[in-house]
């Protein structure tokens, strides 16, 4: 938790992220390329995520939609470029709510001693685009952050201060 490293250089339309996982990179690749697995972690928890296409190969297309309880739908789509392998993936990304603002997402899976670091480099068309994308994502991120905090507090409160047995 709190392990994601993020860099957003001033004046340059990039965002860099990295995160280490205790898993071989084949497993991460699996989680990134299998739609059934993708929806279990990429979709915001409060939305239903439906993957319409996910074709991780050169020229393959992808599209998914997030739906909330109020019936709002948010579509995203793009194209995969080059071979998509355990070394890494490359794709374009566009939020259909703001058409024409496309980013290029590079992803690398770097394995060392059974642990894998995911490195993500996103290139936007402008610094303004980058900042707008971050702002839009954060609207959800804040809510989910609070949800997680709520869950944590609930768990802490459920636990007796002394002599309580572990429930898992």
């Amino acid at each position, binding site marked *: *938790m*709190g*392990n*994601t490293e*993020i860099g*957003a*250089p*001033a*004046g340059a339309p990039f*965002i860099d*992220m990295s*995160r280490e*996982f*205790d*898993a*071989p990179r*084949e*497993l*991460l690749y*699996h*989680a990134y390329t299998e739609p059934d*697995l993708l929806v*279990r*972690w*990429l979709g915001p*928890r409060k939305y239903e995520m439906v993957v319409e296409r996910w074709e991780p190969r050169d020229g393959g297309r992808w599209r998914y939609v997030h739906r909330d309880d109020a019936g709002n739908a948010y579509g995203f789509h793009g194209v995969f470029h080059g071979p998509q392998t355990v070394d890494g993936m490359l794709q374009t990304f566009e939020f259909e709510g703001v058409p024409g603002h496309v980013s290029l997402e590079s992803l690398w899976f770097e394995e060392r001693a*059974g642990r894998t670091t*995911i490195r993500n480099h996103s290139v936007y068309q402008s*610094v*303004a685009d980058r*900042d707008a994308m*971050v702002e839009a*994502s*954060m609207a*959800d*991120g*804040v809510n*989910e*952050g609070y949800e*997680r905090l709520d869950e944590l507090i609930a768990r802490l409160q459920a636990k007796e201060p002394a002599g309580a047995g572990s429930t898992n």
Partner: protein
Amino acid sequence: MAVDPLSAVFGALADPTRRAILVRLAEGDRTVGELTSPFPVSQPAISRHLKVLERAGLITRNRRATARLSHLEGEPLREVTEWLARYQAFWDERYDRLEALLATLEPRPEARPAIQQEGD
């Protein structure tokens, strides 16, 4: 060239000397001479750093008697750390779930000993 405020703050923070200056100013207002002493750089160099910090709104400079004091302004720093921290929380949430998912997937047979796991 016009730079948006957040970019100016990020630019100002992208330097170890300037970050160290901010840390010192968090203890209280300082003159340029007081700020120069711990650093292996000249007073004009520190003055240039102070100008960058001032343009980003991270400090203000006031004259008291003959000394010009630099003062830390908290608001832009709060904005920039909030901006990144919130985006980080967004991705932490996703990656935490990815991590939990990975733990449920079959490991590579050649890489891990066979361990009896709860299946679904």
